Structure formats: structure tokens, C-alpha cells
């Protein structure tokens, strides 16, 4: 790839970008490759100097680091701190990086020894309570979603390159779903976290008639008290609601509150 690109004769600044992964399925990085129609344009926007899954060359000189996955082992903490030192901007890529993602579901047992034994028996294996990146380092920008929505990533990266401000929607998924004129999943008897989850995915799951599981975390204006009332009115059990709220870690504080109240009620 040529290092210096021009557009209509004017040099274009292309930031050096590195991609990194901690504990994850690496799906968010693959989402970028999954954008076949615009992939080559995207590649001309930045200079990728490190992308282990896609290229052999690796450089430690990068301005923007995209980090996928959550922290689950001591060596990952070290790698992450190292990335923080080198990068000007650290972006948490996807729900594992932002909230712990599905990986943090193992924290709900509050018993790492049991968790290890359940999977590995007596074989010694190293692990920690799952943490999002922000529990270890300062994160400059979070890109939500499991998986991330590639159109959103491209929009955000373009803004980063141009030095524009980045705004996440303040309203919930429900707004996007209504705008798409979908049938309300509550009317079909399905639980849905659309009323409380941060928008930006264009109601990806509800548009495919799958209720929202809250992978993008709470919208700033989320009314979680009201959500519980809606679920109760629709006859959806608290267990099913909690399954969704606790799935990606974005609603962790709220789930802990429900659990405390449940304990008190006993």
C-alpha cells in the first residue's frame, strides 16, 4: 500500500491504526472484513499497521488502537497497559471491551474455583473476574454492540480521522424500531429490551423479530423501573428479563439492584 494518499491532489492525513484483541470471539474485527463493498475505501482512510488476524507485519507505532475483548488474565492487563502507553486514542471495540460482554456472565457465580472446575476439572488454569477495558485503563471512545455494526464503525472512524465530535444516540432502540414500522415484539409475546437499550444499531434484532438483548448497554434516558412494569404487564417472568439484562454486562448495576431487592423480599 502507498503510504501517502492524495485526493484531487491534496494530501490526505491517514492515521496509523492498530487492532488488538483480548478475550473475545474476534468477531468485531471480522465485522470490518465483512464489509466487502466498502472495505477497500475504508482501508484507504487509515493506515493499518497492526492487525494480527489479517496481516503478518506488525508495528508498535500507532495513533489509534482498537481493542476488542475483555480482560480475564493478568497478561491481558499488561498488554492493555502497554497499548495505552503507545496509543494516542484507545477505542473499546464491541460489548466485551465496553462492558465485559457475554464473558462476564461467569462473574455471576461469584465463585471462580467452581467455574474453573466445571470446565477444566482439576487441571490448573488461570483466570480472573472479567473486567471491561475501562476497569484497567482510560478508554477514550466506546463502540457498542455484539457484534459491532460496521456502518457505525465506519462513521465513527471517519469522524475520528476528520477530527469531528462523535455523538452516540441518547434515545433507545425502541425509537429506531418504531421508525422502521416493525411489529412491536411485546405484541408477539416476546421480551425485548428495546425500550431501555442505547440506539445506534437501527433496531437490528427487533427488525428480525428477535427481542433486544441489550448488547449496547443502557440509553442515558432509560427508564428501567418502567421496563419492569411493562415486562410484568406482559406476563414475562423476571428470570427471562434478567437473562437479557445480565447478558452483556451493560446493565450490571441495575441487575445487582434487582437481585438485592429479591433477596430482601425473601
Amino acid at each position: 500500500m502507498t503510504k501517502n494518499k492524495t485526493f484531487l491532489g491534496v494530501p490526505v492525513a491517514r492515521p496509523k491504526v492498530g487492532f488488538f484483541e483480548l478475550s473475545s470471539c474476534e468477531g468485531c474485527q471480522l465485522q470490518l472484513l465483512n464489509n466487502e463493498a466498502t472495505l477497500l475505501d475504508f482501508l484507504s482512510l487509515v493506515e493499518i499497521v497492526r492487525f494480527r488476524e489479517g496481516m503478518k507485519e506488525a508495528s508498535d507505532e500507532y495513533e489509534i488502537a482498537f481493542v476488542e475483548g475483555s480482560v480475564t488474565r493478568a497478561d491481558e492487563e499488561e498488554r492493555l497497559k502497554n497499548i495505552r502507553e503507545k496509543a494516542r486514542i484507545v477505542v473499546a471495540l464491541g460489548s466485551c471491551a465496553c462492558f465485559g460482554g457475554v464473558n462476564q456472565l461467569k462473574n455471576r457465580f461469584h465463585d471462580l474455583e467452581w467455574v474453573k472446575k466445571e470446565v477444566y476439572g482439576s487441571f490448573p488454569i488461570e483466570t480472573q473476574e472479567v473486567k471491561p477495558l475501562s476497569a484497567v485503563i482510560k478508554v477514550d471512545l466506546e463502540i457498542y454492540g455484539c457484534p459491532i455494526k460496521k456502518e457505525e464503525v465506519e462513521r465513527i472512524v471517519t469522524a475520528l480521522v476528520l477530527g469531528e465530535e462523535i455523538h452516540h444516540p441518547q434515545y433507545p432502540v425502541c425509537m429506531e424500531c418504531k421508525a422502521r414500522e416493525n411489529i412491536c415484539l411485546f405484541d408477539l409475546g416476546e421480551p425485548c429490551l428495546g425500550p431501555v437499550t442505547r440506539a445506534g444499531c437501527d433496531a437490528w434484532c427487533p427488525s428480525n423479530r428477535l427481542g433486544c438483548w441489550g448488547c449496547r448497554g443502557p440509553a442515558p434516558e432509560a427508564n428501567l423501573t418502567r421496563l419492569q412494569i411493562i415486562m410484568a404487564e406482559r406476563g414475562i417472568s423476571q428470570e427471562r428479563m434478567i437473562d437479557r439484562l445480565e447478558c452483556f454486562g451493560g446493565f450490571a448495576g441495575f441487575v445487582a439492584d434487582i437481585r438485592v431487592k429479591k433477596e430482601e423480599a425473601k
Partner: protein
Amino acid sequence: MKISCDIDIKHLTRVEGHGNIRIVIEDGQVREARWEVVETPRFFEAILVGKHFENAPYLCGRICGICSIGHTLASIRAVENGFGITPTVQTGRLRLLLKHMETLQSHILHIYFLAAPDYLGVGSVLPLTQSHPAVVQQALRLKLLANDICDEVGGRRLHPTRTVVGGFTMLPDRYRLGQFRQRLQASLADLDASVELFRTFSIPDFQRETEFVSLKGNGDYPFIGGDLISTDGVVKKEQEYAAMTNEYMAEWSTSKLSRLSRKSLAVGALARINNNFAGLLPEAKVIAEELGLVPVTARDAGHGRPSVVRARDGERATGLIPWEPGMAGAVNHNPFMNVVAQLVECVQVVLESIQLIDDLLAVPWQELRQTVAVREGIGVAAVEVPRGILYHCLHLDAAGRIVKADCVIPTSQNHANIRHDIEDLAVFCVNQGKTDKEIELLAEMLVRAYDPCISCSVH
């Protein structure tokens, strides 16, 4: 001059997940030759405990970012088998179409983005956008087509949304399915061009005898469910998967490992072709033959008529001489040929998908989702995903909650085989008088040939 080298690759590139290669040769003597798996475990089998069954496909799909559809479908099948549910013909066809397109997407990603750069002498696909623009375009076209169909059938290419226990939440648009059929037909030209590209590749001539495990075909080329078979002659039922995988741990890997009749086994496209060559469509067989992937005995059996579709509809293929895996000369033991096997499978799944769309469009839509009656039981699923055979086993209680979960991943079954291959490859390289740069590249290419999905294998 006697060869000496010290190769220490931490976090091999252009593979999914984290693994290391270490090769030390002193004066022509191999001191060390290792493959190590250092991926962090995510403990999915523990995460699932206590969860209601509807969580299983949703969570398990997230084991893997490349084969999320395969994991989702395996989990669904495990739950359905546990509850005694048989999917409808329509659901079966849609699921197979979805699976085929994941296979195409994943194989193309591996062939072009991960494996091909080595054969074309570059470090990644990036320089190829300048030097081989047509090649990159054909790869992107094929991948885009596969992903577009995954979006249409599964709702989303990664972590699908429409696939649930009992069927689908939504059906694809019939008009668009018809358009996809045309694009699939047109993609055969890109696959032909891929075959031409492969002719220019010089596949290393390295052999190590091993045991290949896959689903067992009955004149067809199976992908979802059925009996299990190995080239050493072991045949088991789907629910006896544990006797086929025999998982164990070793200090060099955070992934579990597998073995059967020998010290290691292999799964994947090459294993499937080694076991089920006779079930390939004639067009796929021709490609296999042209690229040197022909079990000799199978070639003698001659070309049958397209049998996969008829076999799926219950009709046995005719005109094929019975061919048994494990026959002399029938098994290809060159792990590098897995990439060729993947290309052959691309042809197979594209042709089968065209037929599946024809079958789907020949009848009006039926009910999309069956009612699910919960019952206590153990459900096992064996599904051929891009990197090999995948097993999910779920113990469900009377309320439909998961009591115990077990997932055996294709790459975890391959790790021990990769390790023994690396040992033999080091000796092979010494005997061939390779330079240290050549040894390093060959070792990397060998691991990449398995298309390992390491984070998935540790899960």
C-alpha cells in the same frame, strides 16, 4: 552445512486467536518443535449452567466470530434433540442453506485473506489489492454473496438473529431468494477463477499419516447430524460423540485436546473429503481431481450423478461403486491440502445452495416456527462447521434449564495433530535442507492450513 535455527513465533499472525510456534534445530538435529495454545478461556460451559434453553443458541453463537452460525445451529440442534423435536423440511432446508453460506464465507476468508498471501509471497491481502486486484475483487464478491445470503436467511451474518429453537423468527423474501440463486449461478465463474489461481500455488509435499474424523455420509456429503466416522474405521452414533473426542488436557495448551485410535486426529474440510469423497457432486469431484486431491479408490469408483439432493430427499444415489473410507490410497495425508479441500467444498456448497433455493421456491412457505414442548433430557448435536466437526451436548431439566453443557470444538480436536505435524515438519525440513526462513514460513503455513479458530477452541 548442517542446519541450525531458532524460531520463536509468539502469537502467530493470520489465524483466529493466539498460538505460538517454537522450533529449535542445532547442527541438523531437531531439539524442539512445538505448537502451543495460549488463548484465554472464557468458560462458556460454566456460563450456560442454570440458563434457560433459549439462551443456549444466543450465547453459544458468541463462542466464535467466524462460525457463529455453526455454533448457533449446533446449540439449536442439541436442544431440539433433547426435547425430541424434529425440524420441518422447510426449516431443515433453510438451516442448511444458512450453514452452506457460512462455509462459503469462512472458506473464502481463509483461502484468500489468510492462506493465499503465503503462496503469493506477501504478508497480507493488502499488497494484493495493488498487485492482484482482480483476485481480491473475486474474493470480495464471493464473500459478499455468502454474507448477503446469511443476512437474508439468518437475519445477520455474524451472531444470527432469526435462528431459534423450533425454527425461524422470520422467513426470507422469496423474490430476493430468486435473485440470490442468480448470483450463486454467476459465482461459479469466480470459483473457476479461484481454481485457476490455485493451479499457480505450489502446495508443499508433506505427509504425516493420521486419523480423520467427520460426519458419515450415506452417498451424500453431510453437514448437519447423523453418524460419526473415522478413516481408521471407527463408526459411532451422534450421541456417542464423547467416545469420538476423548478430551484431555496437556500443559502446552489452554484448549482441551482430542484423540481416538492414534496419538492425534484431524477434522475439517480434508477430513470430510477423505471420509465422504463419494458424496461430492460431480463438479466438485472434477475440481478435486484437477487440484490433485483425489483418493485413488474413489476415482476408480467413477462419477455418479448429482446425488446429494436426491439423497437428502430419501433417495439413494445410484451408479456409485461402494467406497469405504480407509481403503488403500483413499486418504490424503497432506495437511496443506486442507486449503484445496476448502475450495472443493466451496463448489459443493454453492451447487447445493442453488438446489436448496429451487426446493424452497417450489413450494409455498409453511409454518416458520414449531411449538416447543420442554422435557427433561440430554441433547447432542454434531454439525460440520467450516473447520471440522463440532459437538454440543446439553443436559436439560424438566423446566428447560441447562444443568450441564459440553462443547467440543473442531480446532481443539486439531491442536494435537498440529503439534505432531510441526514435529514431523521440522525433521522434513532438515532432510530437505531448508533455510531457517523457509522453515519458519512452512511452519506458519502448516498451522494456517488448518484454518485454526483458537479462541473458539478454548472458549
